């Protein structure tokens, strides 16, 4: 009996591009399970009578059911099961922090490695994409129109759910391509853009219309949308302006916000300059300030753009890093270097006002602050200078202010996020809902999707209730 037990202990690893190879290309790092690997992993699932994994999923995916279908090699049925709850499975399978969610609750995980739920989700989604998508049956039109602001994870999820319920849905996207952070933020090597395009196409096929180049607040206001006949609006406009450190020298050449750096690389394909027209400048010694997934993405992109050395500078230590463990490991494998308990205090420019150095100070962690992590404080006299020629600042973003400034009566917090009822997603305005980063501040793709789902549900209830009231009024 020794052997089967061994098999239960470890999850099937997913093949990856070798670090030495992948640092020279933008192709996807993780290569995906084969059928045999997926089935072998699915066989590890013990099908708990009271599955805990579902508790950890913001979109309440029926995980044991789809894993069982993989085990039985019923892949078409497996993806259908997934799509009952999740309209972006190939994306979620890649970028969800499963270790913090479903996999954290996996019974198997108490003693051994949990089931690789994300990898299995990716497997069934990819196999369907390869075969060509199958459509789910649509319900009958309700005659109600919903405007969704922003084609990112929250907006796309809400659009899919509302379209499935028979509402007419139009998504207004400010950029030239739908996808939001999936398109402009997460690099090709972690989430290929053809995957995003395919899943967006699926949502279009469900009936949602996409209108790109439409910045709500400028191109149209929310009032305009109601005048155009929309019955409800969902604001899912995402995170906005990058945060800077507010230290001297921040406007020198060679200093990017992570947003700018990644938009140039991902959305504008600057890594193919001059074949594509948008340039990017990456020097030999790149430093990324920050420690989230965005910082890892920027650091790994910089390496692929030809940097000799890439440092990640973080004011706390490795164990406080908010990035996914998997992404930190990928970065380490690729040779990204880390300088912990360090923070920059000043940027130093050359004669051309290009960054040439960064003065840093060492930090120590004190008592936990409101985030529960040790509060970093500078150690006097520990200043030192790092030679750098490119800096990417990845310390977060503040909400985009345009909708708030142009919508009367829309209440916001002092940080600029839109205030919502957390259960329903409703804002201070009756027919206006919000969710994702614009309401919560920066969070994950899957939590934005969860918010999209909740909002879709309450928008649907609201519209159908109104319908009933209208019928009563008319009779």
């Amino acid at each position: 009996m020794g052997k089967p037990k061994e098999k239960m202990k470890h999850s099937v690893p997913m093949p990856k591009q070798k670090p030495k190879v992948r640092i020279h290309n933008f192709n996807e790092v993780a290569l995906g399970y084969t059928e045999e690997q997926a089935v072998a992993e699915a066989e590890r699932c013990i099908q708990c009578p009271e599955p805990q994994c579902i508790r950890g999923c913001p979109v309440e995916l029926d995980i044991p059911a789809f894993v069982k279908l993989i085990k039985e090699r019923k892949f078409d049925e497996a993806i259908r099961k997934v799509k009952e709850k999740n309209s972006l499975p190939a994306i979620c399978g890649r970028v969800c922090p499963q270790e913090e969610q479903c996999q954290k609750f996996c019974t198997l995980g108490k003693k051994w490695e949990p089931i690789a739920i994300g990898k299995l989700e990716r497997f069934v989604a990819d196999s369907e994409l390869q075969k060509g998508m199958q459509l789910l049956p649509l319900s009958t039109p309700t005659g109600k129109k919903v405007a969704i602001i922003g084609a990112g994870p929250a907006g796309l999820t809400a659009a899919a759910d509302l379209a499935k319920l028979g509402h007419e849905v139009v998504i207004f996207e400010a950029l030239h391509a739908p996808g939001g952070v999936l398109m402009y933020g997460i690099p090709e090597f972690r989430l290929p853009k053809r995957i995003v395009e395919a899943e967006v196409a699926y949502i279009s096929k469900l009936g949602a219309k996409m209108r790109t180049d439409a910045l709500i607040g400028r191109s149209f206001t929310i009032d305009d949308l109601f005048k155009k006949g929309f019955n409800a609006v969902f604001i899912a406009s995402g995170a906005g302006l990058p945060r800077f450190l507010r230290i001297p020298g921040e406007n020198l050449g060679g200093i990017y916000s992570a947003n700018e750096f990644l938009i140039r690389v991902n959305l504008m394909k600057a890594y193919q300059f001059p074949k594509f027209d948008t340039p990017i400048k990456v020097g030999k010694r790149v430093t990324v300030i920050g420690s989230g997934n965005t910082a890892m993405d920027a650091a790994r992109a910089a390496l692929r753009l030809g940097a000799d050395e890439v440092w990640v500078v973080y004011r706390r230590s490795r164990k406080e890093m908010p990035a996914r463990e998997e992404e930190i490991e990928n970065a380490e494998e690729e040779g990204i270097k880390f300088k912990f308990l360090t923070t920059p205090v000043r940027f130093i420019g050359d004669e051309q006002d290009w960054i040439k150095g960064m003065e840093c100070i060492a930090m120590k962690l004190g008592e936990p602050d409101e985030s529960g992590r040790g509060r970093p404080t500078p150690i006097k006299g520990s200043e030192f200078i790092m030679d750098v020629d490119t800096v990417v600042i990845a310390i977060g973003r503040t909400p985009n202010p345009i909708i708030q400034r142009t919508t009367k009566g829309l209440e916001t917090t002092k940080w600029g996020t839109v205030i919502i009822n957390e259960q329903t997603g409703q804002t201070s305005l009756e027919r206006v809902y919000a969710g994702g980063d614009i309401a919560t501040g920066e969070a994950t793709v899957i939590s934005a999707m969860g918010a999209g789902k909740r909002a879709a549900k309450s928008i649907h209830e609201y519209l159908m209730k109104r319908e009933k009231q209208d019928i009563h009024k008319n009779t």
Partner: protein
Amino acid sequence: MQKTERTRILGTANMYRVLVKKDLAPQIKLVKVYAPDIAEKAQPGQFVIIRKDEKGERIPLTLADWEKEKGTITLIFQEVGVSTRKLGTLEVGQTILNVVGPLGNPSDIKHHGTLAIACGGFAIAAAYPIAKAFKHSGNKVISILGARTENLLILENEMRDVSDELYISTDDGSKGYKGFVRDLLKALIEKGQSFDIVYAIGPPIMMKTVCEVTRPYGIKTIVSLNPIMVDGMGMCGACRVSVGGETKFACVDGPEFDGHMVDFDVLIKRLRIYFPEERKADELYQKLGKSRHGQA
């Protein structure tokens, strides 16, 4: 072909068709584009971001004019690099892939009394709707137009129509006063002409020097900044400028700012960040020409 199909499903193939195209001066071109939603909302001082084709950059262009009834917007640009050169190849009937706007905060149009519109180069196009709006709201508009040389001077007649007085300067003296816009402004002020407010719209160095002229007189001076932008809607932070010692984003906080607070040296240096890359790409484009990039 598959690509076209995909684009159609995603609905990204918006049709921004060129209806009129004119050469205003060597390398300065005008296109009138069908974009009814933008024309409907446009206000003086606002801009659009355009992307000519699938490989194109996103570049900001100030709205030079618009006609709500016809659903058109007018863009005027100078061919200085690959993106503007490609835009210059567009003929009537062809389309621009993406146009988003109107972006940025509109000019604060109200009654001031007498104002000067100091503008130069192809940015006279950006000044035109502002001058027009101020004229219509009952201000006395004194316009000062500058150009390097006579044949680069654009929109003289249009500006004359919306100005009470109009002065012209050229660097080489081929038309009007020989010198700079700032010299003419200074001369007017010294002659006793009072201004309630000055708008300076043009190359950064010109705006900077105009601000230096007005500063000692304490005349409020508004400038319209033109830093590098990528998204143009408050995401990337490429357009950050230093205003009164604070970092501001030209796309959502501007593009107009109090010129006496702006650090123009930072603006000028940040505009130069990609000069080597831009030059390299431009040389390549000129050499390989349209064959490689293909015409829309």
